[in-house]
């Protein structure tokens, strides 16, 4: 009797910690993005709400929660209501097997699944469903176009993404995230030539996966107003926002784990190493976003199928050949 209750309590605590971390991390990222973009544009960004605008995201979130929640007439109610949850919940579930390192000997990973990579890949591809449901349910042509685009985009970028991950898995010899990190104790994967290529592919495809410039065509502001979330307001919109930034964190955390040695690193505690690597990659994605223009929808597909997929296949074959040797 006592053991199940204890497990339940531990589960609840872990869940609360993870959820709290997600919320704080997303709010931090939103603030950080505004600061990064501001400094790229030689301005200051939020300054007047808290120290250097540190409370800006808090104010934004409270305000968004308070806003009127408009449900336009003519929406497909079920998919309209479910879409924001589909955008957020799978991303949150990914956190189950992201290794944050260890602190005082406690492994900071909710559950080290032995099929961790498979689980993550399965979950990240559910996100597209949320976007597509939002696009379809909104009963708005811009949203529909955005939803269609995202379906095409995410499905085609999933392939190079997975192939790049598989390269790392082959080198590590395991699907478990912890094992992959441990396999990089000596040398990070990214320092091997064909893993470096896999890393580049992963970052590009990952950027596409989280709909960020130059691959932000589902929400393409200058074409589709706000794409799939044109009609969403208030809290539902906040959930899409949360989903987007958490997704960005997840992709960067994955890249850090698979290629940059995860939480391993000298001197500093593992958690710090992990966060430095992850937020570094997130910042890199932001840097790209605030520099490059967007690609067109057919160029996007062409790039996925004509460049990324063949290159990642070739890379995989080379990796296999190296391992066989």
């Amino acid at each position, binding site marked *: 009797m006592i053991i199940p209750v204890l497990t339940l309590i531990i589960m609840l605590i872990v869940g609360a910690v993870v959820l709290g971390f997600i919320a704080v991390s997303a709010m931090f990222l939103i603030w950080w993005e505004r600061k990064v973009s501001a400094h790229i544009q030689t301005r200051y960004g939020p300054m007047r709400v808290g120290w250097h605008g540190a409370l800006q995201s808090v104010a934004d979130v409270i305000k968004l929660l308070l806003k009127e929640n408009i449900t336009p007439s003519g929406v497909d109610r079920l998919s309209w209501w479910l879409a924001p949850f589909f955008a957020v919940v799978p991303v949150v579930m990914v956190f189950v097997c992201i290794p944050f390192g260890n602190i005082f000997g406690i492994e900071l990973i909710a559950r080290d699944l032995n099929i961790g990579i498979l689980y993550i890949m399965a979950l990240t591809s559910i996100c597209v469903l949320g976007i597509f449901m939002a696009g379809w349910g909104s009963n708005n*042509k811009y949203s529909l*176009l955005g939803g269609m685009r995202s379906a095409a985009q995410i499905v085609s970028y999933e392939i190079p993404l997975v192939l790049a991950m598989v390269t790392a898995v082959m080198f590590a010899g395991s699907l478990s995230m912890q094992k992959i990190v441990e396999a990089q104790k000596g040398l990070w994967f990214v320092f091997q030539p064909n893993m470096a290529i896999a890393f580049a592919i992963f970052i590009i495809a990952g950027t596409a996966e989280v709909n960020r410039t130059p691959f932000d065509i589902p929400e393409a502001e200058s074409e589709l107003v706000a794409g799939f979330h044109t009609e969403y307001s208030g809290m539902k919109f906040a959930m899409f926002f949360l989903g987007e930034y958490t997704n960005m964190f997840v992709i960067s955390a994955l890249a850090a784990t698979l290629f940059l040695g995860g939480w391993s690193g000298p001197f500093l505690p593992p958690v710090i190493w992990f966060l430095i690597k992850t937020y570094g990659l997130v910042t890199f994605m932001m840097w790209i976003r605030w520099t490059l223009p967007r690609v067109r929808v057919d160029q996007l597909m062409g790039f996925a199928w004509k460049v990324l997929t063949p290159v990642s296949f070739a890379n995989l074959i080379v990796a296999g050949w190296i391992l066989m040797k």
Partner: protein
Amino acid sequence: MDDTSLKEDIGTEEFWVNMGPQHPSTHGVLRLELKLSGETVVDGIVHIGYLHRSMEKIAENRTYTQFIPFTDRLDYLASMNNNLAYVLAVEKLMGIEVSDRAKYIRVIMAELGRIASHLFGITTFVQDLGAFATPLFYGMREREKIVELFDDVCGQRLTYNYMRVGGVSRDLPNGADGKIKGIIKYLRPKFDDLEALFNSNPIFTARTRGVGVLTASKAVNYGVTGPNLRASGVKWDLRKDEPYLCYDKFTFDIPVGNNGDAWDRYKVRMDEMRQSLRIAEQAVLGLPEGDPTVKAGRIFRPEPGETYMRSENPRGELGFYIVSDGSPIPFRMKIRSPSFSNIAVLPDLIRGLKIADAVCVLGSLDVVMGEIDR
């Protein structure tokens, strides 16, 4: 279920999408109706008039001097050039000769205005391509230097009301020529930076090359003028071909494109800014002495008659057709605005392109609604 009803159920159809008047990339309040088949534009209809402020009616109720502030608000990105075009038209009607210093000051102001306008035009174009805010803000940052100079010279940031019939409202303030030289020196490397951002960027080139090709004959037939016409390969610039003010005293080139696609329209603007710097530099160095100002209170009563004067604005040829009946207010004034003709060609250009390219073409035409609707 029989076959036909199934087909009806899952058949595809073309649909109309309404863009604007409130849309982030319609440059104000343009409204586009696009007939889409999937992502491809099948047909487009342009609706204008959402900013129709009845300038021509107002002109019939204002004296010649009173109308100058209204020209500021025509093409609000190049107010200085609009002022200039208008006062040139009135001067032609009245037969007034302008002092040399006034001419030089006008040239400097017009060319700086052209740079400010092109900076904004190019960077909003790149913003339409999806490079969110950064290029636009770089452009605005550079433009701010020019705007601050204008603020210094005439006291406003956007609506200058600087030119007067017969001269300019005030002489340059002390030290202004040094400031202008400073701006010229500041801007040159900044243009290089902008070019490094765009010119060789593979995404930018892929998005613009071969998109929205406007052939030379079509451009002429549609009455397209300015950088858009030159991008199509027609070497036509009023500053060279019908020199007004003292443009014949300066050496400068006219950049011309080859294909008339969005890339050429961008490139021509970029090169034109450098040429404008050249002109402004020569004008500052050769600034003659004298008094360029005129009295503001003078009331003009032109002989009954009419005139048509056009001058090279950043967006093309801005023409004023003024009919006078001998009274201090014009009998009829028609403003021939370049953007009006430039935007008319849009439905022809976007047919068969993707929706993202439609936005790209619209951005590359660089239109200003205040001028289209007047």
